[in-house]
């Protein structure tokens, strides 16, 4: 049994886990809500208030697979450097403007080729979900990258519950569109609402998660609260934020950036150092917080896990 441990759970993970546990203890101490946290921690999968800028501590988060032991970007960097055009075009706009978004109550419309279409309350969807910490690399199409300790769960868990029918070949995700709370949508920079999509096998892949938090706490709005997609082998714009709709389709969804500039942003958008963006090279990237650029890895370093999804496909054509 021991021999069968997959290579992802390397010896390095042991130290990581220690650091992880220490950090959580530290956070508990600082927030001064240790008692409340412990009490709430008795109930699996519940969320206790930490009283810190509307964020809540997420309980019973288990370390998940596929974690990278690269240094994680700071909470400050992850929450102040965002592309979320609904709140403005500058990287710092979302952190300044996104607080206006109301994330409770929140429902997700599930429709299309699926056995149980409905408007689901997020509380019902998250009931009984086992949260995992997934430390993933995030590679933006703009040639910068971060390492983010997400808290989430495999998207496949939810999809199985919805019961997609044989007609379901793709999943289309839609971001919330609320002009009164989103200053950036006044101008038609993109064809709002923001739509993204995955092929069904990509959506069911164990690397693909829905994230509800990072660094052990619920997501801030600028990171896509209350629930967002994370697909670590694709450029960041595929990982749609603040999801309000999941539609199961038989045809490839028409995605926001692809509609805006089809020759620059494809449907697949797999991280690929050999296929340049028309306006810049994708061979290297700047890890936020580091001075020197580093080489970009095929499928963002997840090629062992996902390369087989694209066997026989010309990745230059299907960029």
């Amino acid at each position: 049994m021991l021999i069968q441990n997959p290579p992802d759970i390397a010896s390095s993970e042991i130290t990581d886990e220690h650091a992880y546990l220490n950090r959580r203890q530290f956070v508990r101490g600082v927030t001064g809500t240790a008692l409340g946290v412990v009490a709430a921690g008795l109930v699996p999968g519940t969320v206790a208030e930490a009283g810190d800028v509307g964020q809540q501590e997420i309980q019973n988060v288990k370390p998940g697979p596929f974690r990278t032991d690269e240094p994680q970007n700071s909470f400050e960097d992850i929450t102040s450097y965002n592309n979320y055009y609904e709140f403005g075009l500058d990287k710092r706009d979302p952190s300044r403007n996104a607080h206006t978004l109301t994330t409770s109550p929140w429902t997700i419309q599930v429709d299309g080729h699926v056995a149980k279409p409905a408007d689901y309350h997020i509380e019902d969807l998250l009931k009984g979900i086992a949260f995992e910490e997934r430390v993933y690399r995030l590679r933006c199409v703009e040639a910068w990258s971060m390492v983010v300790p997400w808290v989430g769960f495999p998207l496949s868990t939810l999809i199985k519950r919805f019961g997609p029918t044989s007609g379901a070949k793709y999943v289309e995700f839609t971001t919330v569109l609320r002009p009164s709370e989103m200053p950036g949508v006044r101008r038609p920079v993109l064809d709002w609402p923001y739509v993204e999509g995955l092929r069904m096998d990509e959506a069911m892949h164990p690397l693909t998660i829905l994230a509800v938090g990072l660094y052990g706490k619920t997501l801030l709005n600028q990171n896509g609260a209350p629930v967002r997609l994370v697909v670590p082998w694709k450029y960041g714009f595929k990982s749609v934020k603040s999801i309000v709709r999941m539609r199961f389709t038989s045809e490839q969804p028409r995605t926001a950036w692809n509609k805006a500039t089809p020759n620059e942003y494809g449907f697949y958008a797999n991280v690929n150092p050999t296929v340049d963006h028309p306006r810049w090279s994708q061979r290297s990237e700047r890890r936020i917080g580091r001075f020197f650029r580093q080489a970009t890895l095929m499928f963002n370093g997840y090629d062992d896990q996902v390369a087989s999804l694209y066997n026989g496909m010309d990745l230059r054509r299907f960029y």
Partner: protein
Amino acid sequence: MRRGSLKWPVFVGCVLPVLWLIGRGITGDLGANPIEEITHETGIWTFRFLLGTLAITPLCALTAWSRLMSVRRMVGLFAFFYACLHFSTYLVLDWFFDFEAIIDDVVNRRYITAGFIGFAMLIPLALTSTHAMLRRLGSRRWQQLHRLVYVSAIAGAAHFLWQEKADLQRPGIYIGCLALLLGIRVWQRARSRWRTRVSG
């Protein structure tokens, strides 16, 4: 410099953006990706100073405030100064002398090509900006050479426009200003030609 000269106040105004940028760097206000921020700031200031330089001649003509003319060279040299900062940011901070990648960029990415042309065009202008060089070249040839500033500004505008991902409003405003400044010149030229034809 005589009393009441415009040169000192304008000089101070021209160094303020870079001082401000340095101040932001020291206080850690450049955000999570400081290199990107420095690139954007030095780039936009280069374009602003180019627009400022090009605005001086028509402003003098329109307002008869001829003293402005005395700072045109300085403002132009500051445009070159900010262009140098912008280019060095790209060369050193962004790519750290990775010439293979830089040459690939300059050859294959049109917005980099345009930016590179815009920068290169400014170099002869800066080198011939002194009175001594003006005398050596003669005023006619000097003036012809310095028309390169139009090429540089247009290349800069293309560089600005083509680097934009989705929102063309911001480069659009700047390029509109440039179009106005160039349009005034075209119009003046056409008008003076027409007058000489009428009177001659």
